[in-house]
């Protein structure tokens, strides 16, 4: 069995964000980058399946991005990926989900993967499109938003998270692509020996020029901080003073403290 896991490196969402010079993306200076959280669930599920099948499947990790992306790739390898492909693209952020998915599909086309795992969306862009588009371009069955996954004899059973705490259960035959939601599993921390082993694993480099180039179907016209609606009162400063002021406000504005 051949497994592909698609990952993205994104900034820590606790960061402060400001637009870049030409207002097409956020300024990447000062940001700390990590693996997209949803993709960690994808990597973990792939590794768990490999373990279930006695280590037989080969897990390839693919990611598109600038040089720093290698750090996220190395983490996925340390979690249990076997090899990786880095599509080196410094202009990745100017490509829309269609172009990103087309690059992944173009790479995957000749590789005949049986199963592809992706996160359900990226934390920075959040379009939730790339995985499904890859599946459609490759003609694979696809299920999104997984909070449950099991594999048995060429068929996968998935639990999709729906609204209001309900889950939808479906069966798909391989080859298939699934997108992973938070809570699907508990992503493992790479151990030191596995981090050391990962250093020896192959990371092949590809350039966008070696893959099919599609024209964009959507474009970012501008990126900007949302207009502040004002919000409410902001209490800053010393803790004791904040506590007293909040007590006063709650007594005045609500009935909960009488």
């Amino acid at each position, binding site marked *: 069995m051949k497994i592909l896991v698609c990952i993205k490196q994104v900034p820590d*969402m*606790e*960061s*402060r964000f400001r*637009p870049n010079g030409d207002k097409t993306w956020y300024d990447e200076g000062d940001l700390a980058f990590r693996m997209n959280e949803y993709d960690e669930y994808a990597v973990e599920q792939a590794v768990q399946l490999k373990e279930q099948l006695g280590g037989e499947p080969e897990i390839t990790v693919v990611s598109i991005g600038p040089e720093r992306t290698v750090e996220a790739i190395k983490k996925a390898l340390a979690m249990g990926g076997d090899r990786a492909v880095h599509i080196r693209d410094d202009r990745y952020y100017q490509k*829309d*989900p269609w172009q990103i998915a087309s690059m992944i599909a173009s790479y995957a086309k000749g590789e005949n993967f049986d199963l592809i795992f992706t996160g359900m969306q990226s934390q*920075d*862009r*959040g*379009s*939730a*499109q790339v995985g*499904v*588009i890859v599946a*459609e*371009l490759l003609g694979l*069955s696809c299920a*999104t*938003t997984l909070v449950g996954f099991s594999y048995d004899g060429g068929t996968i*059973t998935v639990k*999709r998270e*729906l*609204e*209001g705490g*309900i*889950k*939808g*259960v*479906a*069966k*798909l*035959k391989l080859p298939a692509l699934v997108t992973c939601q*938070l*809570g699907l599993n*508990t992503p493992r921390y790479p151990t030191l020996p596995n981090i050391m082993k990962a250093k020896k694993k192959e990371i092949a480099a590809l350039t966008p020029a070696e893959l099919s180039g599609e024209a964009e*179907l*959507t474009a*970012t*016209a*501008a*990126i*900007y*901080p*949302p207009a*502040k*609606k004002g*919000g*409410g*009162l902001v*209490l*800053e400063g010393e*803790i004791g003073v*904040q*506590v*007293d002021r909040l007590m006063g406000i709650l007594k005045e*504005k*609500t*009935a*909960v403290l009488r």
Partner: protein
Amino acid sequence: MKALLIGEYRQGKLLDTTYELKAFADRLGADSVMLVVGSEADLPKYDGKVYLADAATYGEYNPDLHKQLVLQAVEKENPDCIVFVHSSYGWDLAPRVAVALRAGQVSEIVALNEGAYEVNACNAKLRRTVTPKSGRCVLTIQAGAFSPSGEPQGTPQLEKLELSGTASAIEFVGYEAAEQKGVDLSKAEIIVSAGRGVGKKDNVPVIAALANALGGELGASRPVVDAGWVDHSHQVGTTGQTVSPKLYVACGISGAIQHLAGMKRADFIVAINKDKDAPIGEIADVLVVADVMQFVPAFTAKCAR
């Protein structure tokens, strides 16, 4: 401009979010027609053409079949845009339709901006305006962002749709309902919720102590539940419980849209967060800029006195 609106059913019932599609089309100034894979027993109140495909035949949700039905309606209507709610139904189906039509998709639109679409980025800390470059486009709208102005009314003109075959690579098995045991937050008057900002499982009792001192219940955001720090029955948000207490205290919760959707109807919202720019500050009546683990114990001590 003409919009094809894709309504949504679950277990034979029309979902209310379907009406937000019409509200969005009105805001766009677009003529609209609707497609529902649903039931004649529960049709949308809508003055206009509704393509009805029988849910009993085409299943609760089967992406392969629903895609074919949408494409049939597109063929008949030649719309400029096809609009879904950005729900587990919409985000699954919309890209499939977009690929089939080689159309650009704009996901989770929160507002309109002079003909362009506004979407959130980076946990709503930034906004982007996105413009489709394809003649026809696929759009998904954020649930709750385009609410109907009045009670929906109207009588649809029905036109039935059928597929010639119903083969699909995906088999829908059924639903699993949420576990009913645990706390019912929907009736709580005071809720104190723990978010990722509490740092670790061992810190959750500190938040629970504040809930206790105020005579309220403990709530939680999704990451805290996923991490196993708090049981799912305490989860507030789209995939947890929707609450409307008199007081909601959000401790270390940045304010992902799914969480806000579950608690923004609270009468009074206090947020405690060290990040002054956290999206929760936008809806909080009071934002205390502080480390949760320093502020909450001090506040609890004062409340208990």
